[in-house]
């Protein structure tokens, strides 16, 4: 039995399989052609998806009545968010429980769209209740409210959780965007 010869076959096989990241050179012509086709398909799907999103928004939330509420977070040292409960004109419209990954996304600067809906022109009261842990792991529940004046055109509201350094406690701000 020619051990060395046989062994070399195994060796080449092992080494060929061991490059940790393939390079372009490994792609066959078939795969390159398929890749071109896939890229074109993905591009088309992405464009179609955009048109579908726009249609959906215009149909379900026309700009004349659209109201969207967003949640954002600053440092988060004095408050670890668990959930946000939102009411509009006394009616509960959203209860959102955040996952750890979502909290991390908020802390890094992401903004979560908590609610999107329709409201008539005029005044409306928004009440948000934030639940979580305050300093020393204590349960913390705070509310913030705002009366918005809905005009013609979309209305965006940001609920912002921020650390108030001086008082060493969280601060809940509500801001209207046009």
């Amino acid at each position, binding site marked *: 039995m020619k051990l060395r010869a046989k062994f070399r076959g195994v*060796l080449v096989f*092992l080494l060929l399989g061991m*490059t940790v990241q393939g390079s372009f050179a490994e792609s066959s012509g078939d795969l390159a052609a398929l890749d071109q086709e896939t890229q074109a398909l993905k591009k088309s799907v992405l464009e179609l998806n955009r048109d579908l999103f726009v249609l959906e928004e215009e149909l379900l939330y026309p700009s004349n009545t659209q109201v969207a509420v967003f949640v954002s977070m600053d440092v988060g040292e004095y408050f670890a968010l668990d959930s946000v409960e939102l009411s509009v004109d006394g009616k509960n419209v959203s209860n959102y429980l955040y996952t750890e990954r979502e909290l991390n996304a908020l802390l890094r600067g992401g903004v979560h769209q908590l609610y999107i809906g329709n409201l008539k022109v005029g005044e409306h009261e928004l009440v948000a209740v934030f639940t979580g842990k305050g300093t020393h792991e204590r349960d913390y529940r705070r509310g913030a409210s705002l009366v918005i004046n809905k005009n013609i055109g979309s209305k965006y509201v940001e609920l912002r959780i921020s650390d108030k350094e001086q008082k060493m406690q969280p601060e809940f701000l509500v801001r209207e965007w046009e």
Partner: protein
Amino acid sequence: MLRPVANHRFSLVALLAMMAAAVGPARADGVDGFLVQDLHYGEVLFHFYKQDQFTALTHLVTARSQSRVAHHQDDAELLQGGLLLSWGQHEEAGKIFERLLDTTEDLSVRNRTWFYLAKVRYQRGHLDAAQRAFESINAPLPPELEAERYNLQARLYIDTGRYADAVALLNSWSGDETWSAYANYNTGVALVRMGELQAGAALLDRVGTMSAVDEETRSLRDQANVALGFSFLQAQLDGNARPVLQRVRLNGPFSNKALLGVGWADSAGEQYKKALGAWLELSERDLLDSAVQESLLAVPYAYAQLGADPQAAEHYARALDVFGTQLARLNNALADAGDGRLLKSLLESEPESTGGWYWQLDSIPDDERTRYLYFAIADHRFHEGLKSYRDLVALDAHLGQWSEKLGAYRDMLATRELAYAERLPVLEEKLARFDLPAMQEQQAMNTERTTQARENRDIVAVASAAEQKQWQRLSAMEDSPAWGSQSATALEDKQRVLKGVLLWNMDKEYRVRLWRQEKANAELADELQRAAEQFAAIEAATASLPGTVADFESRINRLEASIEQLQARLGVSMVKYEQYLNGIATEELVAQRERVKTYLAQARFALAAIYDRMAAQNR
């Protein structure tokens, strides 16, 4: 040997993390300020940071088309390019990066863009252009990006034959150790494959002796030691191979290869008893591993070399039995690959989600047929193809969901139309009850009267109705024919007194009454204006609704047709991928079957030779 997993995932995680670091909103506006200037950009970042890349990309594209990220133009462009690049959209990403370089003067954005462009060009095989892009980077990049740059630059040097430059570059690296470990490993293996054993061995040895803090780095260290050990064996440096292979953990994913190599190293030095120790241990392991299969021949070979023919014969007979079973299973797996069942079973356990950013097939279903694809998965072509195929399957499902939604929206529009038809007559009847023009005319007359009263200081005009009546009666007396006669003197005196008192009272109240009247006129004017606007809005809405519904219906029809068309194209592409992947799987299975057949032939031949020898000894 699912070795691409760890590093590939690492590189993607790192790439996206550093993109996030790069595009994250500036906290320039202080503690009480807001971090993002466009809420919708923040919303995209939310999906991006929570690693839902497809949603991030689609929301970003939509938000940009609606001009909702105007304050983050460059960062949004760069983020979109990076997301597209990670999603395999090299061409679109490349166009974005080139456009960005033409339009932005922000050095930080420009350097990051040059890096991504270099990456795109490298992945597309445009090595010279990639090198030029690398050379255009004129300042250090963010740390994670810098690590990726070193890694890519090193690979580019290897691909263009500049080994010394690659090694010098890696030696100069002083950043993250995990990145440099992968870079050293890749470069080391590449150098060995190109015959540069000495240079490659130095890099692999560096990885093989590094301190490892987690399973990922321990696994990479084992992998480097196996690669280095086998490189030495191939170069017939058996003495060097053994200590390197012995560094591999006995229960790690690379231990089978290491045990096989240790046995070969001992065998090469005619240390058959020592070789048997490693091989016997190996032969008791999972028979699907090619190293274990090899050991089934290696064990009796060592026994035969030691002159233990009965044991050798016994083990060759076992090998024949095992290889026979393997051959039957491989034939079954080949039949599955032929009709596509193998591919379907690979994706069955995967949750359906869109986007292949983080996706890796970590493990193969523990099925006796699919497990033969163990080595096919390690094939870059197969893995990339499978990833794209999975993307297409997910996109097809995604479009299917939209299709269902559009159906629901169509029903919703039909309901709107019905409600419109039912409510319109009622509404029209209600509106008809209000004669708005008459009201407006009346209000205009009131205003005119008040204006006249102010100009003429007409205190009677703003007096109460009773006072006005009294005033008219008193004044009317003066028109009587008897007025001015002797007999009316007393009455005239009385009338004068009464008229004087009335005039006094009206004059006293004049200012207040005039103010009230003007205020009431203004309020009525406002109310009528609002009513007019509401009337106009209702009329506009009732008039435009049929058109709006028709517009939506037409858009839905168009989008449904596009979905159908795209799903058809996706279907065609998926079939091509299935054929392509089944082809690779079949190729791999055939190779495995040929190897097993060879093993079978070798085992039969060796067994016959031993029987012959034993028979000769007995004669």
